[in-house]
């Protein structure tokens, strides 16, 4: 295949889709699939047939539009109508009224405009709109044109310059400048080189990468091919959690189709550039998402991180230069190439350009997957996009950045979301998890939960993380049982700082964050547990209380 062939497919497919007046996209992502999405797909197909509107209405499976809490959801184009909690019965009614008569069924619509109003969808540009199982859909939406541009009009150096100009930073958590990272690998003389796409989204409560892979796998693959072209790699690996079977299947199918079109493989689009991608499955280890952990895992070993330097850019997979990018970072690449780095740099804040996907969960009215420009405040995310606290309860804290993020109080809600501000406040961008906590939650218990997660996920190699975290968890447990001492607060702080500073890898270095931030912002709750044997949220001491009643 040649570049012209891809452009021709794009034209033909656009034309074909243009025949249809309506398009019904059924979300078949992990959020909706368990709740009858495939039945719904059939129901819509039958309804369209029954009402004889097959020629003007296309029914297709699609990825997630983000409103996961009201699934199964259906996106009806044109107009971007989202129907919520759709059942096969509702499907017939929707076809009859909306398609046949042209009148949307108001009572079934997701009537929450605020959810989308402040969002800006770059990474999720196609999510929910195209069929992830058809490469033609992606191509018709402008897919692979960035790759063509790179292969035909740009040198690897120009590609890297464009990425550098965009100010794009790693979306995996740490926020390292992507262009710089690419440059490190590109300048290495040692070959072969490898690229790795990190989709080991192990954080509980985070599903942005999964949704992206399920909704628009080719955006990841295209970004990855471009990165390989830029750094001169011939082999790539996508490392996916095995707990995401749908994402795995979607990616597998997408890779097959991309290969069939010669978008990966030998002599890609007759450019002389060779690049292959293999899938590698994780197996339930959060630590495998760490840069050196992922490398060990791809090599078939225990995913224990090793100290850096040497960095993967010089010594990665099998000791060769390796570029590791988060999949969200990669999905940002095609639009940057097409629209230019300057365009991208205007989005977000000067230091943190572009957008970020967040999984918004916990006690908010509109949980789901969102994408917002950098610099938006937490308040906007929680109270506008998220629609405020569930059941009108009081906001207490928000955990930003997954299990090793920080718990921020109400006074920090004005904080703009960018790497530096979050870090300063004791949280991290992390994997993009925002969990909203209301006044029914105990902050000691919250810190315990996340510490317990990290204790479970610690690889056990270094002492601070393996033993230090365990001790932090035990002290928290003691406090929750009413056996805490006032000295414990200082001890927790000391241990927290020690684990943060002395641990080998990112897991240990961030794992004390929930404890440290709850100590910083909710110290009074610790004091209440220790000196008054009282849990302000009424969560702890329950067992003891009920025992006393029994006696």
């Amino acid at each position, binding site marked *: 295949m040649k570049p012209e062939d891809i452009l021709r497919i794009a034209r033909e497919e656009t034309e074909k889709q243009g025949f249809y007046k309506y398009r019904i996209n059924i979300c078949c992502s992990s959020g909706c699939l368990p709740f009858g999405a495939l039945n719904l797909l059939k129901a819509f197909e039958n309804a369209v047939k029954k009402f004889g509107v097959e020629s003007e209405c296309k029914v297709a499976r699609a990825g997630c539009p983000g409103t996961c809490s009201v699934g199964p959801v259906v996106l009806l184009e044109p107009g971007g109508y989202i129907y919520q909690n759709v059942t096969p019965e509702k499907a017939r009614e929707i076809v009859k009224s909306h398609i046949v008569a042209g009148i949307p069924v108001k009572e079934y619509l997701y009537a929450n405009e605020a959810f989308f109003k402040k969002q800006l969808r770059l990474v999720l540009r196609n999510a929910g709109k195209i069929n992830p199982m058809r490469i033609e859909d992606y191509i018709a939406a402008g897919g692979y044109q960035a790759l063509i541009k790179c292969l035909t009009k740009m040198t690897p150096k120009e590609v890297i310059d464009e990425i550098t100009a965009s100010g794009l930073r790693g979306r995996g958590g740490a926020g390292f400048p992507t262009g710089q990272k690419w440059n490190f690998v590109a300048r290495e003389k040692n070959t072969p080189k490898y690229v790795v796409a990190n989709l080991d989204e192990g954080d509980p409560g985070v599903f942005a990468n999964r949704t992206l892979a399920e909704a628009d796998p080719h955006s990841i693959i295209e970004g990855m091919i471009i990165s390989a072209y830029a750094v001169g790699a011939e082999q790539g690996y996508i490392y996916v959690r095995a707990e995401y079977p749908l994402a795995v299947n979607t990616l597998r199918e997408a890779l097959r189709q991309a290969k069939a079109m010669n978008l990966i493989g030998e002599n890609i689009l007759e450019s002389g550039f060779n690049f292959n991608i293999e899938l590698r499955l994780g197996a339930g280890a959060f630590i495998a998402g760490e840069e050196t952990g992922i490398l060990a895992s791809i090599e078939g070993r225990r995913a224990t991180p090793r100290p850096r330097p040497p960095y993967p850019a010089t010594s990665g997979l099998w000791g060769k230069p390796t570029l590791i990018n988060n999949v969200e970072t990669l999905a940002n690449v095609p639009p940057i190439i097409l629209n230019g780095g300057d365009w991208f740099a205007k989005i977000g804040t000067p230091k943190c350009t572009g957008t970020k996907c967040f999984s918004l969960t916990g006690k908010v009215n509109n949980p789901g997957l969102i994408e917002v420009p950098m610099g938006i405040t937490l308040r906007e995310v929680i109270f506008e996009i998220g629609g405020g606290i569930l059941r009108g309860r009081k906001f207490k804290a928000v955990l930003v950045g997954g299990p090793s993020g920080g718990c921020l109080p109400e006074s920090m809600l004005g904080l703009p979301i960018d790497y530096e501000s979050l870090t300063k406040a004791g949280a991290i961008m992390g994997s993009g998890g925002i969990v909203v906590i209301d006044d029914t939650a105990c902050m000691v218990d919250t810190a315990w939960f996340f510490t317990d997660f990290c204790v479970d996920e610690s690889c056990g190699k270094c002492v601070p993380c393996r033993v230090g975290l365990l001790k932090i968890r035990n002290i928290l447990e003691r406090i929750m049982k009413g056996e805490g001492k006032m000295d414990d607060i200082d001890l927790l702080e000391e241990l927290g700082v*020690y684990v943060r500073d002395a641990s080998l890898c990112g897991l240990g270095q961030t794992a004390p964050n929930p404890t440290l931030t709850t100590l910083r912002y909710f110290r009074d709750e610790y004091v209440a547990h220790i000196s008054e044997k009282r849990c302000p949220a009424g969560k702890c001491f329950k067992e003891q209380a009920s025992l006393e009643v029994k006696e």
Partner: protein
Amino acid sequence: MSVSSVVKIKIDGVEVTAYEGDTILSAAKRASIYIPTLCYLDGLSSYGGCRLCIVEVKGSPKLFPSCTTPVSNGMEIITNSERLRKFRKLTLGLILSEKPHICSICVANGHCELQDLAKEFGVDHLRVEREWTAHKIDLTHDFLVIDHNRCILCARCIRACDEIEGVHVLDMKMRGKDSQVIVDMDEDWASSRSCTSCRKCARVCPVGAIYVRDKPFSEIKDKEMAKFILSRRGL
């Protein structure tokens, strides 16, 4: 030694000449500057797990394990700040509290690197409660014994078995706090088909976790002997 280029670094304010390929630890050793170590052993690959040898490098807020961090020109290293001393003390206290390390009834008493380090740093008590583990002690082998209740998971035995003896009988199972050194498929030592009974694991064990039964500990844990064996690895 191959010809390698000279690297100028400063350790604790002293100018030190190092070579490309040196780690901070090897450069410091050559300059007779002491950095405490535990999981590190000359002749084995570096592990970077115990965090005792962490040092500060000027210009970075991070701490670096000196056993794995390569030197680079102009590097300024601090090996013994207030913070580092505090952290090392904490590390030792945590290791001591992870298992029921009871020196008075341990075969390694008086010949234990952990005990020596605790003394050196004045770790005179434990600030956190101990874990009271009750792992099985494997006494099946003719003379080698492994007591997991004393194991500090430094992986020296695993590395010696793999890198020096070349049989890789030992490895680590599970992860995190549940990590444990295993023999073959987590089997009794006696049923191991690959173990050559070479005793290198016992020689390198810094504590009393692996030892030779009915032998004075001073004899097994002859540091000079261990050094000798490790220095012959190329032969």
